[in-house]
């Protein structure tokens, strides 16, 4: 089997060790990395679709994401700026201030990455100002705030307030999600969108970025 096919298979099967090994072989053979990354991204999109239709579940998705990351870590230095240009967009994501939950946010992160986004995951309980600072640092397109508690939902509004105060509101799209949130509330706080689940988050980001 060709190296590239083996690599795609390792990612589809979620084997990060094999993915890293084969990625190294790909580099050593001097393959053009851009088409390889394109194939891997396509594979991850396929997995994203399977996740959406319950053909695969979170464990498989997380393993494939790990395998993709392992391959990209090997490619990283060789890809340079052109690799980054292949991304659909840059998303800064985190749990709202005071919110210690992260599994939902982690799922969204994995699915967005699989669809071709560069995602900076700031973790849980992220100060509102940190979202803004990181977005500026990474020249992000989207800020995503996850709230799993009704009491931490106002943190998303605070992010929007800081952006407005600093004259940055038009620079970033702000999206929100999490079990207690809903579209009506998202509209009320002035967010650019709300997603009910990880699949909707991808659709929302694609719509906001004007990509498919």
């Amino acid at each position, binding site marked *: 089997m060709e190296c590239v096919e083996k690599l795609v298979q390792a990612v589809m099967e979620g084997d990060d060790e094999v993915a890293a090994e084969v990625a190294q072989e790909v580099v050593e053979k001097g393959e053009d990395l851009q088409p390889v990354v394109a194939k891997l991204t396509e594979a991850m999109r396929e997995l994203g679709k399977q996740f959406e239709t319950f053909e*695969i579940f979170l*464990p498989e998705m997380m393993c494939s994401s790990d395998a993709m990351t392992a391959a990209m870590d090997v490619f990283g230095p060789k890809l340079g700026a052109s690799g980054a240009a292949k991304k659909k967009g840059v998303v800064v994501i985190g749990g709202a201030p005071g919110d210690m939950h992260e599994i939902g946010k982690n799922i969204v992160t994995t699915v967005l990455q699989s669809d071709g986004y560069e995602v900076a995951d700031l973790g849980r309980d992220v100060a509102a100002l940190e979202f803004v600072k990181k977005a500026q640092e990474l020249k992000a397109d989207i800020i995503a705030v996850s709230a799993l508690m009704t009491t931490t939902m106002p943190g998303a509004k605070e992010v929007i307030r800081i952006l407005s105060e600093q004259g940055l509101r038009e620079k970033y799209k702000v999206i929100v999600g999490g079990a207690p949130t809903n579209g009506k509330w998202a509209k009320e706080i002035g967010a650019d969108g709300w997603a009910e689940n990880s699949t909707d988050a991808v659709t929302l980001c694609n719509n906001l970025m004007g990509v498919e």
Partner: protein
Amino acid sequence: MANKDVLIQALNYEEPARVPWVPYVGVHGGYLIGKDADEYLNSAELLYQGAMKAIEEYRPDGLPIAFDLQLEAEVLGCDLAWVKDNPPAVKGHVLDKVSLSDLRLPTEGDGRMPLVLKTAERLVQEVGKDIGLMGLVCGPFTLGLHLMGSKIVSKMVKKPDEVLEVMGFCAKVCAEMARMYLDRGIEIIAVVDPMTSTISPKFFDKFVVPSYDPAIEIINKFKAYSLCFVCGNATRIIPNLSRLNMHGFAVDENLDFKYVAEEARKNRKAFAGNLPLTTGLLFGEVEENIQYAEECIEIGKGPGFILAPGCDMPYFCEPENVKAVAGLVHGK
């Protein structure tokens, strides 16, 4: 006829005399008596007062003793983050610091166990004849996530034996916690395993189903009733939940309740749900909540159906909304 009789009828998959109603009052009990969630979940007296207030206001047929899925994890050494208007959250996973072999099963004197068990004893004594009191235990998979963090999810693929070992320990914790409640006269044990909605039916059968066996064994030994609670879009594992050797299961509003009812009835199992929490009980109007409850009843009515919210009621849940549902159930 005691209120709990209709609940027991549903758990026995009989046609109840009227719709059984179980509002999951957890931290919301603190709100009802004007106490913060952290103070509430750290006091046997307040847990008792909150439950009594909920019984007075919401006229339930069943009620949980305490809805805190972090109780066992805390005893086992996980760090918790406390807030004033929610249950605590796990912020540090104990298996990041120690190995599984270092962990010991919780005892009745550990952590907040004494205050929860004391509350159980007191409520059984005072209202147990009329209300179906529920002992809630953290499900093995959710406890595994507390202990290991989200890496347990990918290790189900990469290191299944390690996960099975952790699940084996969590199964024992779950059974032990159930025994503590049952020893105090609790008649219904709910194994609350919300995170199982993220895994496949195959993994559910492989990793999770066997982990329920020790708890089921002890529940059956006490001739008590068993329920399994899940959250999120658990559509794919509904048939598996229905096949569990339990009396029934509970779901939230993220799935099609009609489908849930159909699957539960294939195996003559009780099923509880699925009043919307956020859009309904928390932020909705009274009329909307009555409508949601009527829709649930219309779909579920008949043997096995229990009217309940999707999950633990939020701290700030609007009492008038809950009272309206109670009014609908009781016909006034």
